[in-house]
């Protein structure tokens, strides 16, 4: 079997059993990258030399028995908004085009402790602001299923790389759907964990109250295994939560008997593509046939999630991105007169259009005179949305929904109308506002052959339920984990 078509757990097992070496595994990934990158452009940086060196070290540790993780030696791609010591970290932006972090993000450190081999940093929308990976300063990423289409975003590079076999799994980050939506578009599995489950230390912040790192993999089992490794209580992240259970792989059980699944009627109205709708409802039927109890209900407040999100996310972004001033790292403009001129010119030249749009909106909603009307109003709306989910989870174990209203759009179609692009986040955004875990799992393709993902949203700290249901569904699909080839 070809190394690049293996799942992370399959490859990890063969490495543990000495059938394949970590060096062979990384060489196979690098060959695939060389072959596919000219077309897909999943990576901003490929670290061939570092990866080979690291693979040799990991192989030695495996042989000495000092690393026994099920994923030791398996090649991984890291979204380019996670700091990696000494390795270029651009966040998809010109303003960080030469930034080499002096430390490594905690989630990535956790992977390294488990023997992961980083092959490179994956492409993304600039500062994770976007739904298509077209706002990257380093060129757009293309969908491996059909390169005329986008991979989704903002973790489009991570999802495309996994779908194309360029790395066996990847890390992404999700602020409003940035793991789940591109996972859906690229036919891979992605998890956005409960807020606070994975440390944000070293994740370049966009909307701090919404950002969460999560795994992207070929199947549910890989994602559960990766989540088990990256999740940890970290005192370096003040919002990190000390959870009771980190054993996510224990939920890989093919049994959904008695599980209560709610279908929000408000998610299946106008605006949802009919092929997507049909595929999601068919997948829910599969779970019902396996013993789950499925029921429709009214979630309510759905139409208020996007406006509330864009106020909160833009406000936090305008504050978070104030650190990019051309003083301590990254790009600085060439000529300037005085300090403020340097700040303004550096930022105006270093940020792209979408980032500037959100910084402007964020600065506006936080400015005196508008703070109450916009920012506090959005935070009050968030409280009501959380309450609506709390009440849904009194009755249901999880909510089943699409990950996106349609399959991947063609390149160039989305950026001309930002508001329309924002509306595409309707099914994913609420989970970020309410801090809930969500998973996207492939359920089929449309008539163009583009993948469709079903999203399962669970209550806070109940990843295991959605992992279990997604896994049970996946067992019914012969094509699970096959990728774009």
């Amino acid at each position: 079997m070809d190394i690049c078509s293996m799942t992370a757990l399959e490859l990890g097992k063969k490495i543990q059993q000495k059938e394949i070496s970590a060096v062979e595994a990384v060489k196979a990934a690098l060959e695939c990258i060389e072959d596919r990158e000219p077309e897909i452009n999943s990576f901003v940086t490929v670290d061939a030399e570092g990866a080979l060196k690291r693979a040799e070290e990991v192989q030695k540790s495996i042989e000495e028995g000092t690393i026994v993780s099920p994923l030791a030696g398996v090649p991984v791609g890291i979204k380019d908004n996670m700091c990696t010591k000494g390795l270029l970290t651009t966040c998809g932006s010109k303003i960080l085009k030469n930034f080499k972090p002096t430390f490594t993000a905690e989630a990535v450190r956790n992977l390294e402790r488990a023997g992961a081999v980083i092959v490179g940093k994956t492409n993304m929308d600039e500062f994770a602001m976007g739904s298509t990976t077209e706002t990257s300063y380093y060129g757009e990423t293309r969908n491996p299923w059909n390169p005329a289409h986008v991979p989704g975003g903002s973790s489009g590079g991570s999802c495309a790389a996994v779908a194309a076999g360029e790395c066996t799994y990847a890390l992404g980050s999700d602020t409003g759907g940035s793991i789940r939506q591109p996972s859906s578009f690229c036919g891979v599995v992605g998890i956005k964990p409960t807020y606070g489950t994975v440390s944000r230390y070293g994740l370049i912040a966009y909307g701090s109250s919404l950002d969460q790192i999560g795994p992207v993999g070929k199947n549910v089992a890989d994602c559960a295994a990766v989540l088990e490794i990256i999740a940890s209580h970290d005192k370096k992240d003040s919002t990190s939560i000390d959870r009771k259970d980190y054993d996510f792989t224990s939920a890989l059980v093919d049994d959904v008997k008695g599980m209560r699944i709610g279908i929000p009627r408000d998610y299946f109205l106008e605006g949802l593509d009919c092929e997507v709708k049909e595929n999601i409802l068919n997948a829910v039927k599969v779970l019902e046939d396996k013993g789950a109890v499925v029921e429709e209900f009214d979630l309510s407040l759905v139409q208020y999630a996007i406006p509330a999100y864009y106020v909160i996310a833009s406000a936090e972004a305008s504050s978070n991105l104030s650190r990019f001033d051309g003083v301590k790292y990254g790009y600085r403009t060439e000529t300037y007169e005085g300090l403020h001129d340097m700040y303004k010119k550096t930022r105006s030249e270093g940020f792209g259009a979408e980032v500037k749009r959100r910084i402007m909106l964020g600065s506006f909603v936080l400015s005196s005179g508008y703070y109450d009307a916009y920012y506090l109003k959005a935070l009050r709306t968030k409280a009501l949305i959380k309450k609506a989910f709390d009440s849904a989870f009194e009755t249901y174990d999880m909510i089943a929904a699409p990950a996106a209203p349609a399959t991947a759009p063609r390149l160039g179609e989305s950026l001309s109308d930002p508001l329309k692009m924002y509306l595409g986040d309707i099914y994913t955004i609420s989970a970020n506002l309410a801090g809930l875990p969500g998973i996207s799992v492939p359920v089929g393709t449309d008539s163009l052959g583009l993948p469709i993902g079903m999203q399962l949203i669970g209550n806070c700290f109940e990843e295991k339920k959605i992992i279990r249901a997604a896994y049970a569904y996946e067992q019914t699909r012969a094509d699970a984990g096959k990728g774009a080839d």
Partner: protein
Amino acid sequence: MANKISDETMEYVGILAKLRLSDEEKENAKSDMEKMLDYIDTLNELDTTGVEPMSHVFPVNNVFREDIVENGDGSEDTLANAPLKKEQGFKVPKTIG
């Protein structure tokens, strides 16, 4: 209820955001922002009287720790990223007149 943003407001937001936009960018930003605010105004349909603004979803409190250095001296590595440096510091334009 279409939002209209004045040039003065745009100028002010530019100062807060530390961005200098070209005239064309300014016009686009203004119309984008007006459209977004019109959309955001749908929140006004929602009665939020008596609802506390929720900044954090979980009832967690700030965590304090002793101020002890744990990560060693990384000043050389940190300065390696500086666009301009002088001796052991970041070099910036004159800040006090």
